[in-house]
């Protein structure tokens, strides 16, 4: 096994354990891991952005290939930085106007078409279907369609505040609440599944790094973190002022 993989495994194991130490309580190991994460993310983002945007999308096409029209987006980009110079901060509005204008023009028609009109269309399917076997009145798909229709209408009633929720409106809105509860339950169930998946993913690697091939990285670093937390707790007990 190469040295770089081994070093990577030890760093990954150490940082995972530092972050999990927060489950005990907020502590210096967690803070160290948190700060390293933020620093590395920003540094990595800067390097990739510099190489992928400044070099590949700007320097090479403009300087080496002579695409001088790229000066226009470059100028618009530079104008955004005028925000940091108060006397000329207003100039940055030109760039923001461009971004908002183009962004809205591109996004609004597409989003309305894809995420509203097509979803409305999906909620209004026929309940009765006809095929080779004749006309079908009661099918599982038809039941689903009916369920979706009742759900959509009742939830819309619940969020319709122009009419007082009494009588029939109250009863329909009440059905809407039940649909919302089922929806929140499903979302929560999937969230639990996602968080458990992340835990399993980390544990999977920690188990792998606990092997002799990786120098028992998990076991050694777990012992180091536990010992560190014990020493930290003792220090806090001896000197309560350090809690501040």
């Amino acid at each position: 096994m190469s040295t770089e993989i081994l070093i990577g495994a030890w760093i990954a194991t150490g940082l995972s354990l530092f972050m999990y130490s927060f489950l005990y309580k907020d502590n210096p190991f967690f803070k160290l891991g948190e700060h390293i994460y933020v620093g590395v993310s920003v540094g990595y983002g800067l390097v990739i952005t510099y190489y992928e945007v400044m070099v590949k999308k700007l320097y090479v096409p403009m300087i080496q290939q002579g695409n001088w029209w790229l000066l226009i987006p470059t100028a618009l980009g530079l104008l955004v930085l005028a925000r940091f110079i108060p006397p000329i901060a207003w100039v940055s509005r030109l760039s923001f106007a461009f971004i908002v204008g183009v962004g809205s023009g591109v996004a609004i028609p597409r989003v309305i078409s894809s995420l509203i009109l097509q979803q409305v269309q999906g909620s209004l399917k026929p309940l009765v279907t006809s095929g080779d076997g004749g006309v079908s009145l009661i099918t599982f798909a038809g039941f689903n369609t009916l369920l979706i229709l009742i759900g959509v209408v009742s939830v819309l009633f619940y969020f319709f505040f122009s009419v007082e929720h009494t009588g029939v409106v109250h009863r329909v809105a009440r059905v809407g609440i039940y649909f919302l509860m089922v929806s929140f339950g499903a979302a929560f169930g999937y969230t639990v599944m996602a968080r458990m998946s992340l835990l399993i993913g980390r544990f999977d690697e920690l188990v792998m790094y606990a092997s002799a091939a990786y120098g028992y990285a998990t076991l050694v670093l777990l012992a180091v973190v536990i010992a560190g937390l014990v020493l930290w707790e003792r220090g806090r007990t001896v000197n309560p002022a350090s809690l501040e």
Partner: protein
Amino acid sequence: MNDFARRMLSLDRRLIFLLIAVVTLIPLLYPLGLPIRVSPEVRAVYDYIENLPERSVLLLSLDFDPASKPELHPMALAIVRHAFRKNLRVIGMTMWLTGTSLAESVFAQVAQEQGKKRGEDYVFLGWGPGGANVIISMGQNLYAAFPTDYYGVKTSELPALKNVRSLRDVQYTVSLSAGSPGLESWYVFGKEKYGFELGGGCTAVSAPGLYPLIDTGQINGLLGGLRGAAEYETLVDIKGNATAGMDAQSATHFLIIILIVVCNLFYFLTRQERGRQV
């Protein structure tokens, strides 16, 4: 009984963390091999790739970063393995800046396993700035959107991209997304305009929001979370990390269900007592 219920409700939550850790760890160390049932939405993605003719073009956009690796990385490995086994031309890319190296490693790893050549059998375009606008740009002219691939080779000279001038020349696109830009962007700005078929994978958190897209036919299939990845691994008959993690997933879910039931029971017991005191 009520005293016991009250004590249980005020239990140190770190004991529950410990319990979850133990229940997760045991199936990882001693797998049970619980059966995995393949859902129709996962099979739809598999079937579409399975039925593509050789040398068809599959675009795989790995729109996630290391934070979602446990869920989406196994999906990516399984789909790339399937595509290479079917001898498809694979275009890899990412719309997440911080996921670039991770995405690149997926293609490099599977290509090495299956003896595929970069530039001939697959390309990795890397990351492009502009979020969803990259999709529009690729739909107009792929070579203009990505003049070079991740390694700096001119895309117009790559054999794997022969006759692929824009997204209209792509037979199937799969976006494995952890958020935005991701699968939804590919539908809104790509599929509807340029007419390719679209499938996807997502983290479990995003799944409930994306299932309506299947119902309306906006996407043809969806791999949801670790379970979706495990189902795809079952279909391609490769036991990867997702399959290994499913036992632990089932065990933790079982424990959480028990905890929810027991906590509610204790809650109602103590509530009855409070009601009597009032």
